[in-house]
């Protein structure tokens, strides 16, 4: 029997089902020893939010320091530590696991009609590794921090600083394994656990995006792991792989590091793009325009992403021919990214668009990611890069893509699937307000930084020439607004756990398999194995299902 039954959500009679994955077992141990992908996703969501707010507080300190041209709030070396820890925590403990470990963990098995990820114990292990790495990072902060920048640049990290490089490196190393296990689990699950009828080209684009990101996690992360190991050996016993006095080459570290850390930005953004595909299709009531192109563009981003790493090194003395080649390859990444943006825009065309909160965040994503992506083309061009790199232009570009893009997508996804995860709706009006506040605050914070960068303000300094102050004041003021924008969802989402309206199975009338089961779902996700008998985003199929349902009622 097919379990793909669409039930009309009748808000007045909908009840939270007595049996669901949250109510099945109680007590702390039932959470800490769980194998259920949905519970692990919730564990991740809680711990991720915790690290996000630590990283956010550090960002707040950075912006406060930059309010005035002098280094007056903190000493300059403290400032170095603050921006380093902000980077380390935000990248390794928030951005990399953000969407995959929470939404991906929760949704991939449901979207493909499976009961769980293929390796539930490995999934739980990845959460424990994440927490262990995170605690080590916090210990590092308490023990005096680290000031190499999140890039661990040699020989600074191996010879010239006596801060906690080792523990930070170990924290990143452990978190890396957590991410490898998540990616590995996704790949195996998507290959081997799909329900009958769920062919590759019926998969939701969210799953495609996660598949592409998983390839990057699995293939790129071990390279940064070995780079960190070599740094640790160099600091402790003094081997000479990166040490120029012994004949080693610090540039080799840059190659190994960016071989991971460039694909890492695609690990961060691809799952977010998956969220956008789902949200845009649902709230335009249309199939995603050019499904196949969007699916393959994810894979193309993953593949191209492996061959562009040296664009981080244009001013580091790599050969001019390498600059030429990597500059060209970098431009190529713009193509699949643009395919996505254009196809989402075409999806909107003649759709029945509604403006629920996830959709507002999605619009934010499309605008900000486009700006972030296009400024990436400036930076991929070696001529402009030589002027703009190491200025605030880089900071603005990166934050447009990661905060404007990824974080918007994360919040879009959290709001979109909140009813599925908790069984309750978030309050619509205040969350729309939060989305708008975030967008305004974001632009106030980071747009001035583009101007600062072109004017030549360098990054990573606690003080700056007084003529830059007005733009920095704008930026700090914007960060305050942005902070409110991020605090609001925490408050009302927690509130909604108890007081939110009951959501019902499918509040958005969406087509994905995850919506065709109760909210919150059963531990086994479906009462019987679903059979996929329609294409992804097939709203006509949904209409037919509804007619059938009404007729039978």
């Amino acid at each position: 029997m097919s379990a793909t039954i669409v039930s009309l959500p009748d808000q007045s009679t909908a009840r939270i089902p007595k049996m669901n994955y949250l109510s099945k077992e109680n007590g702390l141990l039932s959470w800490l020893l769980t194998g259920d992908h949905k519970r692990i996703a919730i564990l991740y969501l809680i711990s991720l939010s915790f690290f996000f707010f630590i990283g956010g507080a550090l960002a707040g300190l950075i912006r406060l320091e930059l309010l005035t041209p002098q280094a007056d709030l903190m000493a300059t070396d403290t400032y170095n530590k603050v921006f380093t820890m902000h980077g380390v925590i935000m990248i390794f403990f928030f951005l990399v696991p953000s969407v995959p470990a929470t939404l991906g963990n929760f949704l991939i098995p449901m979207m493909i009609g499976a009961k769980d990820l293929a390796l539930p114990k490995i999934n739980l292990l990845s959460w424990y590794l994440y927490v262990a790495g995170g605690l080590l990072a916090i210990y590092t902060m308490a023990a005096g921090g680290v000031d190499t920048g999140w890039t661990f640049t040699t020989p600074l990290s191996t010879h010239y600083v006596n801060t906690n490089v080792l523990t930070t490196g170990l924290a990143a190393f452990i978190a890396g394994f957590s991410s490898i296990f998540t990616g590995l689990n996704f790949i195996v699950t998507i290959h081997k656990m799909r329900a009958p009828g769920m062919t590759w080209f019926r998969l939701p684009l969210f799953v495609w995006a996660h598949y592409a990101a998983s390839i990057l996690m699995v293939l790129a992360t071990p390279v940064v792991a070995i780079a960190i190991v070599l740094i640790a050996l160099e600091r402790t016993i003094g081997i000479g792989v990166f040490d120029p006095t012994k004949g080693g080459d610090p540039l080799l570290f840059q190659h190994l590091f960016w071989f991971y850390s460039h694909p890492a930005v695609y690990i961060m953004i691809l799952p977010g793009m998956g969220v956008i595909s789902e949200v845009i299709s649902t709230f335009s009531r249309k199939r995603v325009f050019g499904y196949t192109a969007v699916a393959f563009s994810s894979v193309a981003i993953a593949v191209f992403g492996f061959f562009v790493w040296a664009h981080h090194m244009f001013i580091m003395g790599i050969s001019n021919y390498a600059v030429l080649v990597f500059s060209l390859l970098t431009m190529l990444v713009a193509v699949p990214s643009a395919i996505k943006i254009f196809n989402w825009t075409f999806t909107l065309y003649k759709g029945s668009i509604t403006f629920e909160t996830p959709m507002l965040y999605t619009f934010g994503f499309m605008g900000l990611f486009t700006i972030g992506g296009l400024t990436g083309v400036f930076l991929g061009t070696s001529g402009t890069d030589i002027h703009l790199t190491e200025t605030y232009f880089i900071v603005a570009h990166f934050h447009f893509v990661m905060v404007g893009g990824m974080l918007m997508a994360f919040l879009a996804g959290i709001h979109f699937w909140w009813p599925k995860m908790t069984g309750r709706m978030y309050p619509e009006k205040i969350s729309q307000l939060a989305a708008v506040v975030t967008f305004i605050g974001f632009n106030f914070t980071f747009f001035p930084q583009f101007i600062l960068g072109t004017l030549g303000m360098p990054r990573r300094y606690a003080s700056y020439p007084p003529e830059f102050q007005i733009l920095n004041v704008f930026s700090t003021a914007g960060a305050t607004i942005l902070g409110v924008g991020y605090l609001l969802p925490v408050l009302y989402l927690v509130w909604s756990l108890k007081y939110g309206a009951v959501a019902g199975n499918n509040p958005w009338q969406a087509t994905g398999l995850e919506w065709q089961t109760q909210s919150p779902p059963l531990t086994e996700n479906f009462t019987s194995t679903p059979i996929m008998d329609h294409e992804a985003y097939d709203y006509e199929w949904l209409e037919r299902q509804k007619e059938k349902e009404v007729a039978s009622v």
Partner: protein
Amino acid sequence: MSESTAIAHGAAEAAHQEHPAYLRHHFENVEQQADATNFAMWIFLLTEIMFFGGLFTAYLIYRNWYYPAFVSASHQLDVRWGTLNTLVLIFSSFTMAMGVWCAETRRRKGLVLCLGLTFVLGLAFLGIKTIEYGEKIEKNHVPGFHYSLNSFLDPEHDAAAKQYGDKPLPLDMARHTEVYFSLYFAMTGMHALHMIIGIGILGYMMFRAWGGAYTSGHVTFVENFGLYWHFVDIIWIYLFALLYLISRHP
């Protein structure tokens, strides 16, 4: 009433017979479970290739840059120990493969014996590696710890260098032998770490195998560990070729 419960009970039992106890609840059947876990292991080995790949890349780059230093430094390794260790590992791969076969054909004692042999051979490999590391420490060839250039500046008074008729290296090039030994220790050290982890898991498996855990049809764990062990073996064969054998023509 009691009849219907009896029937239900019987049906449950029949269902239980169809699904062996080791079938995890989220898989449809045993084939899917074995298929998925094997696939996962292969992907894990892929990450391991990338992990060692960073080291191999570094080795290839520096060997091209500092060719004379790498040749002279390679002559300092004792190829006899290396060969012996290669034989030990290849033999341990054989015993491991036999172990997988024993598990598949449900020979409990054979499995324990094979795992035990693999365990001992693994330890033997580490023992020989320790002797080799000891030699390096004696000759001050450990980078970072009073690294000595004598073998390369004055090869006439160094038995290993003399054997291959090494010419004295200029000081600048001789200093780059430290990069060779950095990579030597990093690569063999990472390999030894994998061996130690493998030996730990072997001990655990022997304990479980004695209780008959892998000889009741559920061989995935032994099979996947076998893949891991062969992988570590293959890494060593590359290390042996690149570190010991590559510059052996006199």
